[in-house]
């Protein structure tokens, strides 16, 4: 039981990385992207292929996974981000499906629907981090999420975060203040994509095998749910959302009722969360984090810029 709880925490950690990325795209940039699963898959396959074919260590594949996802983020972002937000949702949804389609069909590289097995376990200072012994893996993941959180938090308070907020609130006003809206949107998109790629790498070395079936549209919806449930524009809330959504999705197993509860239960619940939150609490559980400048920020963070 305790081991199972650790598993939930690990998945919450992997998804929290994706949720942080989704939050900078959707929560800060106000763009509805539905393709975290696509970048997640790209990251996973980058690690899986580099590690099994070329014998790279996990830590060497990590930046490649991030860069590759970022590159595809740029590729899909450049044409669509110049347009109104609604197109982005469809284009990114389509991109996610294309990724899965390609992974399923490119047999020589991805081994098709069979996927890639026997991915080596990651090493850290000579220790092998065995995913079956979950503590070490969880520890590694917590550190990564923490680093990502701090980075994003700093970023949100930087010039870029302010620019993105302005773009979200009113594109035309932002543009007339001299903000290059496409540039900042693409930046946000690339960042969100690369962190999802990193999450994919961790997924690959945690499950030690990758199959295209893991990276469905469902994953993107779960990540979106995490951000919406926690509160858009709040990184803490995204992590909280990741934990709650993972807890919900393993609720049937946790309560021992998996034979009673239909397997679609969680998906229906995710759909309901989206609708209900939008109607009754669009700001999410924690609400948007306000930018506190000056004294208060200096006090609570222990240092002003």
């Amino acid at each position: 039981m305790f081991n199972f709880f650790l598993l939930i925490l690990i998945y919450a950690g992997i998804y929290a990385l994706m949720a942080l990325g989704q939050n900078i795209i959707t929560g800060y940039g106000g763009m509805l992207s539905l393709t975290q699963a696509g970048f997640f898959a790209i990251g996973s396959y980058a690690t899986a292929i580099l590690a099994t074919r070329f014998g790279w260590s996990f830590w060497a594949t990590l930046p490649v996974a991030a860069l590759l996802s970022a590159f595809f983020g740029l590729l899909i972002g450049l044409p669509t981000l110049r347009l109104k937000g609604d197109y982005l949702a469809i284009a990114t949804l389509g991109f996610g499906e294309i990724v899965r389609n390609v992974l399923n069909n490119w047999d020589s590289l991805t081994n098709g629907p069979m996927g890639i097995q026997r991915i080596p376990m990651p090493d850290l200072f000579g220790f092998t981090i065995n995913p079956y012994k979950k503590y070490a893996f969880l520890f590694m993941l917590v550190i990564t999420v923490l680093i990502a959180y701090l980075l994003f938090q700093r970023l949100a308070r930087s010039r870029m975060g302010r620019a993105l907020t302005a773009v979200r609130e009113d594109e035309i006003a932002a543009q007339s203040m001299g903000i290059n809206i496409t540039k900042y949107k693409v930046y946000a998109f690339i960042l969100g994509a690369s962190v999802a790629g990193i999450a994919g790498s961790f997924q690959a070395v945690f499950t030690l095998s990758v199959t295209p079936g893991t990276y469905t549209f469902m994953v993107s919806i779960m990540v979106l749910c995490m951000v919406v449930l926690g509160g858009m524009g709040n990184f803490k809330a995204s992590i909280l959302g990741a934990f709650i959504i993972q807890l919900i999705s393993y609720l049937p197993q946790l309560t021992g009722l998996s034979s009673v509860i239909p397997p679609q239960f969680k998906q229906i619940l995710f759909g309901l969360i989206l609708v209900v939150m939008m109607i009754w609490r669009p700001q999410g559980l924690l609400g948007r984090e306000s930018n506190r400048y000056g004294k208060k920020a200096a006090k609570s963070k222990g240092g002003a810029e």
Partner: protein
Amino acid sequence: MFTPVFSCYRTVQFSYEGESIVGIAEFFQHLMNGLTLGGIYALIALGYTMVYGILKFINFAHGDVLMVGAYVGLFLFDLLRGSSPLGLWTIIAFFIAMLISMAFSAVLGVFIERVAYKPLRRATRLAPLLSAIGVSFILSNSAAWMFGTHSRKFNYPFDNTPVHLGDVVITPHQILILVVSLVMMIILKLFVDRTRMGKAMRATSLDQGTAMLMGINVNRVISMTFAIGSALAAVGGILIALDFKVYATMGTMTGLKAFVAAVVGGIGNISGAMFGGILLGLLETFGVAIFGIPTGLKDTIAFGVLIIILLVKPEGLFGKVEKEKV
């Protein structure tokens, strides 16, 4: 879990395995296949484009309304048909099932709008989109829960033996698709152009505020839009189900492609959606048959088209350029 969308989209009827050298007969064969596929896309695209024209948002749940329509049609048809052999009665039963399914989907569409979109009309742009994705997820997974994840066969209401016209092979099903989609589009076009309600719809899509001032009941117009769009989606769902079976996630991919069709034609433009649908159907068929795109990547054609259109002519082939006002 999600059934794999792509594996279910094998080219069953629409593609014709021929030689690589294209003869006239083969060309007409592909033309025919493309037109029928395109007719279905066009029917579904109409729902997207009408809603977008009036509410300026993408109804993500449209594809799942299509799926519900197909299920309702399937169950009703099987119920009405019983064990009677193919004949006049099965054809009548098919059309009765289709009409009831249209009515059911129309009510469902209006209900969804009332519950999930109407409260969000004054919210941010993101809110109705997220809500629509939620509705889509609820619908497809409820269907998977209630009816199972296996796909069901929608039996042909007639003998579907292909007819040979010279070297071109046409199935009665293709003729049915062409006739039904043509009739539906003509009725819709007449409705929008000639009736009072159609005029109100056009006025609302031009300027909602002014339409309201002119005494148009905008809420009623919006409900009507959802009703018509959903009814057409049900027809599209049933027509496509005859070849591709009925399953809980059938609406996802079909809906996406129909949306691409709507964008290609210029979203918000009714004739554009019809044209875009047929164009996309032709592109997919010819893309696989003549330009040698592997069948496994057939579904990516639509997205390639989407990206190209967005890059080159984002307002679509027949859309007007919208200037944003401050």
